């Protein structure tokens, strides 16, 4: 039984990791905590839902939703976030907060507060291995998370543009002096984050409901994951996601399901207070703050 709980924890954790990757990337490069990140997830889930209503399977919708969300991410950087980069910290926090409020209410206006879900032939399928039951859509999500996170890691470390992104994250002024177009890096970072959240939305749609405030459920966990795994560390986001998913499921099994959120907030507070750099993060990353 405990093995079953841990397996489902790991599978849930994969999704958390996927949501956290974009948040972590944007924080690492621009030092901005994007409070609207959860609303990007909400938008991509609605996109997957409406494409399903048009007869397109959520997994097939990935090829449409991912580019669409990348454009949305790039647009929000170019039209909005760009103008706050020189502003004090509170402006950065509350501009993304304003975007989050606006998107949530736009969804409420367009789609009402109903909980919507898709029906697919495979969504209740499960594999049975050694007495354990593994949900197929969750397994698919998990495998995709591991593959894409690995792909992003390779991109950041092996390609010139990936190296430019990492250089900007380390020191944007010096990167600019070395001839890197920092503005382009920022837009690309938001586009990548948008693409990942689009992927997360499509993978999540067969498992979960979509409603205007669905982003809040996931973004709060994503913050915990980012802080626990380490700021600016992609492997950290995945490991942190798996860990939080497991903690959540195990504490929900042993203690009380209504207290499982308390479990990850306690993990979050302890992690920040004891080791602010996170498990796999660079020491001192949290000291940069928002400036």
């Amino acid at each position, binding site marked *: 039984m405990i093995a079953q709980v841990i397996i489902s924890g790991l599978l849930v954790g994969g999704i958390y990791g996927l949501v956290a990757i974009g948040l972590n990337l944007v924080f690492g490069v621009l030092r901005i905590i994007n409070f609207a990140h959860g609303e990007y997830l909400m938008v991509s889930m609605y996109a997957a839902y409406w494409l399903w209503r048009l007869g397109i399977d959520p997994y097939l919708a990935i090829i449409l939703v991912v580019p669409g969300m990348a454009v949305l991410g790039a647009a929000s950087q170019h039209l909005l976030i760009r103008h706050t980069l020189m502003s004090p*910290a*509170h402006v950065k*926090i509350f501009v993304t907060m304003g975007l989050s*409020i606006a*998107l949530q209410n736009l969804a409420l*206006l367009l789609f009402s507060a109903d909980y919507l879900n898709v029906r697919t032939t495979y969504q209740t399928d499960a594999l049975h291995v050694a007495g354990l039951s593994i949900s197929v859509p969750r397994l698919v999500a998990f495998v995709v998370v591991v593959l894409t996170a690995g792909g992003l890691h390779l991109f950041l470390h092996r390609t010139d543009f990936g190296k430019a992104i990492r250089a900007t994250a380390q020191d944007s002024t010096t990167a600019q002096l070395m001839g890197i177009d920092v503005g382009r890096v920022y837009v690309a970072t938001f586009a990548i984050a948008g693409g990942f959240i689009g992927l997360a939305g499509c993978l999540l749609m067969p498992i979960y409901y979509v409603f205007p405030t669905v982003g809040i459920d996931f973004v709060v966990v994503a913050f915990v994951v980012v802080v626990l795994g380490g700021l600016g560390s992609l492997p950290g986001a995945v490991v942190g996601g798996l860990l939080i998913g497991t903690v959540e499921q195990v504490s929900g099994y042993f203690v009380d399901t209504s207290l499982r959120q308390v479990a990850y907030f306690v993990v979050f507070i302890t992690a920040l*207070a004891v080791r602010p750099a996170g498990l796999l993060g660079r020491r001192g990353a949290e000291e940069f703050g928002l400036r």
Partner: protein
Amino acid sequence: MSSNFWLDLLILTLVWAGIAGSWNLLAGFAGQFSLGHAAFIGIGAYVPALLVLRFGIAPLLGIVAGAVVAGCFALVVAAVSLRTRGPFFSLMTIAFAEVTKILAIYLKPLTNGSEGLTLALAPGLPNLLFIDKGPYLAISGVYAFAVFGLSFWLRRSRLGYRLLAVRDDENAAQSLGVSPFSLRLVAAVMSASGAAIGGTILAFYTQFIDPDSTLSFTLSIEAALIAIVGGLGDPLGPLFGAILVVPLEHLTRGWFGGLLSGVDGLIFGVLLIAILLTLPDGLVDGWRRWGYRRMRRRYA
């Protein structure tokens, strides 16, 4: 729209001006952006209510107890959260507030969980319950006035100058013998107690308390928003912010709420972005600059 509607709006504006003013003591003066003030508002609501419902202690005393409990809790929250900087302080305070809310739902025997508590008490000053809105207006006016008095005093006091010094340059202040950590703790306690009193007034005005209406994250945002829109660190900022934000929220909700739910929030979010991008230092600053320009034109 009857006169009751406008009176209601005035009372809420004054209470929120006070709550945002309290938030401003920590954020504006000490430079620490709490997004967990809902916890203190909620404690201010729950402590006096539980004291009167479970132990029969008059809310007039309970309001003090609420402020004290919130102050003590702020000491714990701040002592842990102040180990982090910038946005991480904000995230820490969110986590503490969320834990408080979950516990308020979970501790059902004490708080009655998500069903909430109804304050059906005999009207009168000891119970802070009145049939007319007049006394509430007086109470909220005194509260807002007290918070602004405190802010103005702080701005001119030794404590206030030290806080501003720490906010603007921590290392320089420290080298002159100012202890940033203990100063910020003092600011956090004052800020939390102030917000708790506002929470008590709100709770006894609506006469109903549940975790959603007294402890939700939106309350933390509301407090911060009002102060930032008005002018961060300016004693008058939260009053300006409340005069704009609270009526705007209630009027748009009244106009669009029933038919097109979401329009009010959409307008609110877009307006928030617009104000932050055009007047990053808030309405008070914009008003002062405008006044200054006009004066210069007159005497040019």
